[in-house]
């Protein structure tokens, strides 16, 4: 019986020190070629603790996705360094999972095989990876949808599968680029609560990009605010609301105070310059 209980937990008990320490030092990233080359990220230095939930807040086009792309290992920095647990980031790795605004599930794989994909790449046998995938699907509230194809799910469900697919690898860091940005307000709030709930159980460092101040304040332990292009970190705001957080905090005085501070920093008055939406991997396929 004891044995059964231990096995049904999706994550083995954390042994020893927690992982997921991020150290970014004097990071500069340049994008574009020739005449069009420009500095997207300028002299960013920041450390993130293992298991910390950090939100990156900044105006559109300031270099948030670029910074995340470099952390994931898809973009090479021009100078400076990124280390995760004292290891230099040199390329993509299953230790650093990525979640985009629009899901990138494989349309040809059923939900369960999407979630189990990381374990397939690690060479685990099918039965074992399906068992683990089923546990993670239960964790994100999608038990019973194993045999569906991604296109048969709603946007919120697709993002939940995406999160499960990343978490099955037990990443040291989960990098999320406006993951709930395309969802309707109600679904977004539900997903925020679900993410916090999952994160309480599977503790991993999360770096979460958003341009929604409320979202950042509701989720984060700490908010990093970035300046318009070239992106620099202009302020770090600790957010100390007790967890588990409830939606009541939205109306508290302290919440409103922090929100005002964020608004000031983002200069929302003159932030209405239209910028083409690009990802560091090229033009975004969705408007």
């Amino acid at each position, binding site marked *: 019986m004891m044995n059964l209980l231990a096995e049904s937990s999706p994550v083995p008990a954390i042994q020893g020190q927690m992982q997921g320490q991020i150290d970014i030092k004097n990071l500069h990233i340049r994008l574009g070629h020739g005449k069009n080359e420009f500095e997207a990220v300028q002299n960013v230095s920041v450390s993130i603790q293992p298991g910390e939930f950090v939100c990156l807040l900044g105006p559109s086009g300031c270099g948030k996705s670029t910074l995340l792309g470099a952390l994931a290992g*898809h973009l090479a920095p021009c100078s400076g360094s990124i280390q995760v647990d004292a290891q230099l980031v040199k390329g993509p*790795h299953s230790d650093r999972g990525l979640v985009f605004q629009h899901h*990138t599930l494989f349309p*040809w794989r059923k939900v369960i095989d999407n979630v189990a*994909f990381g374990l397939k*790449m690690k060479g685990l046998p099918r039965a074992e990876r399906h068992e683990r995938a089923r546990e993670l699907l239960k964790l994100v509230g999608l038990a019973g949808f194993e045999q569906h*194809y991604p296109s048969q799910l709603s946007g919120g469900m697709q993002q939940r599968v995406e999160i499960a697919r990343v978490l099955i690898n037990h990443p040291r860091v989960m990098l999320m680029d406006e993951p709930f940005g395309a969802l309707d307000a109600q679904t977004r709030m539900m997903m925020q609560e679900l993410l916090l709930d999952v994160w309480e159980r599977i503790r991993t460092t999360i770096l979460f990009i958003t341009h929604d101040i409320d979202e950042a304040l509701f989720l984060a332990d700490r908010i990093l605010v970035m300046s318009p292009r070239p992106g620099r970190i202009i302020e770090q705001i600790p957010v100390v609301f007790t967890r588990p957080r409830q939606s009541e905090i939205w109306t508290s005085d302290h919440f409103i105070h922090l929100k005002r501070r964020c608004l000031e920093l983002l200069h929302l008055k003159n932030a209405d310059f239209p910028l083409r939406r690009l*990802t560091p991997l090229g033009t975004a*396929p969705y408007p």
Partner: protein
Amino acid sequence: MSSITEAIAISSEKIRPHQLEVERLVRRISSIGICVLAWHLASTHHVDLGLVTFQNVPSPQEVLAAGWELLQSGKIVSHLTASMSRVFSGYLIAVVTGIALGLIIGRSRTSGDTLLPPLEMLRPIPAVAWIPLSILMFPSSELSMIFITFTGALFPILLNTIHGVEAIDPRLIASARSLGTGHGAIFTEVILPAAAPSIFTGLSIGMGTAWFCLVTAEMIAGQFGIGYYTWASYTVQNYAEIVVGMLLIGLLGMTSSLAIRKLGNAMMPWRVSGANK
């Protein structure tokens, strides 16, 4: 697969999918029936529209008689096996080279720059123009004919594969890499399945163009083949036999293209829209 058919069944409660299928089949067959009827009327009444005339066009009855004769002679089996083995050999080689080249060209700009210009130059050359060179280049006429059907099938497969690979969302590949997919596995686990719908479009078109080149290829045949039969009937001006040959090629081309499409749908059950086409 079953969950998809379920989903379709739910979306159209009133009409049963089976009933719908029967209706569509009836519509398709009657469409061919109408064409044959129009042909019958035009040829028996010797319709002359000035620009186009049916005065000397053989009627369906004459063609049927010629077809019956071919069937009776017993040569049809040799004609069919000869043509089918040529078309399928050329097609198979085109499938392998087209998909392999397409994956490479679609993935790397340098290989695209080096491989595409000569291919683009060869592409507009019609099958007929290849006849003399293919006779010179290959030791047997059988290989020459296979080569000509190969040239017909190659380009649709190649171009659709390239297009399919280039259209893959780069985020899909980035995600896969961040999930621990190595360089080799990216091809088999992501690029090939992501490009599969486009590749199958190419495979289906390529099947048709391979048959399209058959008459040309079999102009150099000595004895057997539907294309040879058609061409030989032309040299003796037997028009009914020509139409028999034409119809046989059309029928075989259509059936094998359809088979490829069905195979594609069976292999890509996640494409709900493709499943009921």
